């Protein structure tokens, strides 16, 4: 088990799960329980005084007994994201915030300039910021300078299920920030994508749609948890070097000469 902590929090399960788009609250709850995740992401949306949908949802999450990581999803400006973070801190009672400042709607690519600015404002105000970013090393460095202690590069566009679109970039980020907890956030579609991220040495994966939109979300959540664990174990075991040419695995020495 890696000793890596996330703002001091040890996560036994390195799969972080989103809570949106499940067929029902019961299936969401079962997916969280069966996959034994320690942390889930949540959000804030407008509440109707008459319907109060948010109250029931919050009760459900509290009963699951997991840590919550509120997000600033949908925020396009620094002010929006900072204000949303303050509102989330009060409602959820946590300093943790998954900071999203969206720069472009088709790809939901982060606006990294706004992200760094918002991260600085929030860390100065005592938040523990988990920034949704790209693989850009310079931006990563600026986020650390701003006080972030975790970086969360995207695997692929949110909800796309494409997997790791830029393996080189992710590998470079891992090598460049060897001591920083790194989480691949967004774009994963299959458990093998989670394994691959962990095999690269990432410390956790965060996903939502791949589980929530699966035919059987509970079974898929379990599969992702297993794959995440397998990838983590493989990285710790030390994968072999890739070779260009074949190398016999059966010893050549002592082979009979039968020509």
């Amino acid at each position, binding site marked *: 088990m890696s000793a890596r902590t996330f703002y001091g929090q040890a996560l036994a399960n390195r799969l972080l799960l989103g809570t*949106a788009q499940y067929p029902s609250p019961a299936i969401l709850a079962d997916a969280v329980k069966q996959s034994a995740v320690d942390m889930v992401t949540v959000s804030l949306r*407008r509440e109707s005084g008459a319907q109060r949908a948010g109250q029931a949802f919050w009760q459900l999450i509290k009963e699951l007994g997991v840590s919550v990581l509120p997000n600033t999803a949908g925020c396009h400006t620094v002010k929006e994201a900072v204000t*949303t973070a*303050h*509102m989330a801190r*009060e409602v959820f009672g946590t300093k943790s915030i998954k900071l999203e400042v969206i720069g472009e709607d088709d790809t939901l690519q982060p606006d990294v300039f706004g992200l760094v600015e918002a991260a600085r404002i929030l860390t100065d105000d005592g938040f523990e910021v988990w920034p949704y970013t790209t693989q850009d090393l310079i931006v990563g460095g600026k986020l650390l300078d701003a006080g972030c202690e975790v970086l969360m590069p995207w695997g692929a566009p949110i909800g796309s299920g494409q997997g790791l679109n830029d393996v080189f970039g992710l590998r470079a980020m891992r090598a460049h920030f060897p001591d920083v907890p790194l989480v691949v956030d967004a774009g994963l579609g299959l458990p093998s994508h989670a394994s691959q991220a962990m095999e690269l040495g990432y410390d956790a994966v965060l996903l939502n749609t791949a589980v929530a939109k699966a035919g059987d979300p509970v079974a898929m959540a379990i599969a992702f948890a297993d794959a995440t664990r397998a990838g983590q174990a493989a990285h710790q075991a030390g994968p072999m070097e890739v070779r260009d040419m074949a190398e016999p695995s059966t010893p050549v020495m002592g082979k009979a000469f039968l020509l």
Partner: protein
Amino acid sequence: MRVVLNGEDREIEAATLAEALEALDYADAIVATAVNGEFVPHDQRGETTIKEGDAIEVLAPMQGG
């Protein structure tokens, strides 16, 4: 008095944000509030005055990724 609650016009009688929340059926709900784009912490709702045309945002926990 007309206010804009979560993007929709509403008629209420309230001097403060706390009174507005009461009038708008949020009395005991777990919500976070903002007025005209500025976060208003829970303990400041009683002293935050509301005037004609103010935009009140009332947010609650929701599913998220």
